[in-house]
């Protein structure tokens, strides 16, 4: 029995290192889970991109779930995500609210004109102050906010059809079930 101890130790180490390789192959060390999941979305009051004199608040959006999608015209990954929002995003069955993050309003308006807007409403956060309350650290990011204004799901990075099918749509279905 004793002679197998080194072999067992070796197998144990192989298992440990193998786990490390496997874990790092799919787990993204840069992904930071948001502490805001299942907490009320922060209060905000931001101007509409198309009508800067009109302010949109958290309270004005209460009552039905919506997807808050952080984007910007300077963001290349947002352009990758854009076609997905135009098709799969429009088919989610909830309003899409665009959150224009640290962007020049004219650039954002031009970007949406050129690519087409998937959004029902676009709010602009040029200084990026409110984005800090949302824990935004890049773009794109997407928040699912329910009828009571609680953040139910967050995705960091571009939404893909796979992510929507695997994570976002089930989350939306759950939100819709409780508040039809």
């Amino acid at each position, binding site marked *: 029995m004793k002679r197998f101890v080194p072999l067992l130790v070796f197998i144990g180490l192989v298992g440990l290192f193998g786990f490390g390789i496997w874990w790092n192959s799919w787990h993204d060390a840069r992904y*930071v889970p*948001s502490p805001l999941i299942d907490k009320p979305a922060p209060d905000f009051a931001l101007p509409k991109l198309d009508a800067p004199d009109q302010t949109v608040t958290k309270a004005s959006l209460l009552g039905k779930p919506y997807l808050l999608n952080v984007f910007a015209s300077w*963001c290349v990954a947002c352009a990758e995500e854009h076609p997905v929002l135009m098709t799969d995003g429009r088919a989610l069955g909830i309003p899409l609210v665009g959150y224009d993050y640290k962007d*020049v309003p004219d650039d954002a308006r031009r970007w949406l004109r050129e690519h087409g807007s998937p959004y029902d409403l676009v709010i602009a956060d040029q200084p990026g102050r409110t984005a800090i309350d949302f824990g935004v650290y890049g773009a794109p*990011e997407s928040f699912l906010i329910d009828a009571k204004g609680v953040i139910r799901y967050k995705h960091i990075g571009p939404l893909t059809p796979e992510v929507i099918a695997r994570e976002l749509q089930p989350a939306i279905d759950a939100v819709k079930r409780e508040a039809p």
Partner: protein
Amino acid sequence: MSLFRWQHPSGRSAPCARMPFVESPRNSRRAQGALLRISLVAMLVIAGHAFAASGAIEPLPFKDHAQEVRFQNLTKQLRCMVCQNENLADSNADLARDLRLEVFQLMQQGKSDAEIKRYLVDRYSDFVLYDPPLKPGTWLLWFGPLAILLAGGVVVTVAIRRRNRGNGAIDDDKPADGRQAGNAPADMGDDW
């Protein structure tokens, strides 16, 4: 306009290697007028040299030196979410600049270091802290190395005891299969 410290006026144009899928705003924007940009660059280059020469860097309007030291100390303990290997004090990322200003403003409001950290943790999770807090989820992180060290110590102690016990006479832990009888001191090594 409050200027933040400009670390490497010549060397660092890009804030950092960005996240592969998430982006942060660019430093320079098309909307800035050329004249403004040129004057800014000139200012920063001059300021950079001046600061590099004097060693005193931080053009935020601090109340006193103690507050400046406190600010530096605090931002060194906070992680930049965009350049995740940099702290807030050193990072040149746009978000880091915003968060430095946020920290500065919270300080002006009389918030304590703990309150400012809580403010950021509430938004960006414990990940913003370079020093992970002690809580059930981090016990393995904090005490794991100690546990491994203790386990190693136990293994070594047991091995040494066995060896010493075997020195005098027959080792009764071992099966008396003839080959090992009376040969105990060597049995820790012979089948390795």
